[in-house]
């Protein structure tokens, strides 16, 4: 089966600051590819380049059989590629429901949007109780749920999650991953940046290790476990 997303030799970065120096990865139609690596070595930059938020300098991105290298962010979202950004990135002075609806910005069918909203509330029932509250008044865990729910509202096929467990208490992380597991079993594909080793081993099928703008190691979760050193070196020896 062909890959859902594949990219070859990506070069990209910020003004006067190259970050990615030839990154190639492949993401299958289903399952989870995890991206790990030390801070500041280009994980977020790779996600931004794949979503089209940062322009590609060199290389090629193929998504769902189409050349996506020059597509706008909007076109990529339409094609089913969605990026849930790192950190607290909500529309803070909007209600929970308005935040979620922003995720379906490109959808126009009312019934379809209502259905997606119901799905998001079913996945995160807590959000339903808080639908009319401003996002700024939520707890950190609830805010993360809104971020993920908002991403789902686009009905993407591939969801790119940038550190979904960042800054959350273990119990909340657990709850987030219960939801992610559900989505995964419904056939969504994920590319996630994650630093929590136990979450990684449990959720990811394959791991990519990024260092200084290169992918320096790739393998299945089992291989990573066996090779021991890799996770130890890069995740601080848990």
């Amino acid at each position, binding site marked *: 089966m062909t890959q859902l997303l594949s990219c070859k030799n990506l070069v990209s970065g910020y003004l006067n600051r190259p970050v990615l120096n030839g990154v190639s990865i492949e993401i299958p139609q289903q399952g989870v590819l995890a991206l790990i690596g030390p801070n500041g070595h280009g994980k977020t930059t790779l996600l931004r380049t794949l979503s089209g938020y940062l322009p590609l300098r060199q290389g090629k991105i193929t998504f769902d059989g189409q050349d996506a290298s020059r597509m706008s*962010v*909007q076109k990529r979202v339409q094609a089913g590629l*969605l*990026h849930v950004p790192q950190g607290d990135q909500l529309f803070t*002075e*909007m209600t929970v429901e308005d935040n979620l609806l922003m995720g379906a910005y*490109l959808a126009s069918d009312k019934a379809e949007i209502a259905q997606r909203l119901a799905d998001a509330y079913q996945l995160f029932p807590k959000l339903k109780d808080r639908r009319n509250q401003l996002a700024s008044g939520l707890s950190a865990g609830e805010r993360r749920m809104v971020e993920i729910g908002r991403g789902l509202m686009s009905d993407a096929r591939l969801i790119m999650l940038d550190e979904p467990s960042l800054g959350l208490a273990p119990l909340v992380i657990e709850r987030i991953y219960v939801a992610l597991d559900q989505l995964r079993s419904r056939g969504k594909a994920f590319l996630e940046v994650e630093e929590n080793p136990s979450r990684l081993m449990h959720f990811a099928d394959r791991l990519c290790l990024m260092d200084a703008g290169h992918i320096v190691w790739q393998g299945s979760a089992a291989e990573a476990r066996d090779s021991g050193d890799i996770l130890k070196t890069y995740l601080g020896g848990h």
Partner: protein
Amino acid sequence: MYALASVGLSLIFGTLGMFNMAYGLFMTLGAYAAYSAANASQLPLVLGFVAAMVAGALIGVLTHLLIMRFMLGTPDFGLNVMVATAGLGVVLQDIEIKIYGGYLYPQVARVEGLAQLGGVSITLQALTNVAVALTLILGTAWLLMNTRFGRAIRATAMNREAAMLMGVKADTEFLQVMALAGMLAGVAGLMISTQSTLSPQMGGDPLLKAFVICVVAGLGNVWGAGVCAFGLALLEAAIGCYFGGGSGFRPC
């Protein structure tokens, strides 16, 4: 009237993260457009009003298409646009002087007459202005709060990156906001000119007030801008009334 201008200015700053230095001239342009349309037709009021709206929206759109679009994504976007729109302001003012001359005109598109309100007489023009300003501000607020278009504008104002990642296009967003804010400026200009006179410089003073209001309300806070503007107007009216500032009674 300041309320309208402030709401428009605040809308631009909040969503687009820039100052539009030519905004005063957008107002003047609206006022002149109303004047010309009113002079040329049988329905001076309606056409004048429509002309002010259209002229304002049009200049907003043109500013985006001809200037701002090319600066999108540059590292010093805010500064670049500020300088460019300041330049645009000078050019627009010169064009207006060329066409209409530097003289003061009375606005033709106006409502005549007086109304008695509990023993106080007040010009119908003033009442109309208040009504129009309120309607447009509430209309803008409704648009922002209840439509997909408005939701995207608010989202962009709160978190540009996240909004882009949801598929909002910066380019389209800028265009729409400039059209809407330009339209508000056009109408604000028309209303200001009905209370004073038409001159190429008339946009300067209201622009300054709009800036003050925006700063007090918190730059980019559309709701606050509307409220503060009415507050400032009341304060001005009170000062004018009790201390005889000479500006006379100025509603809104």
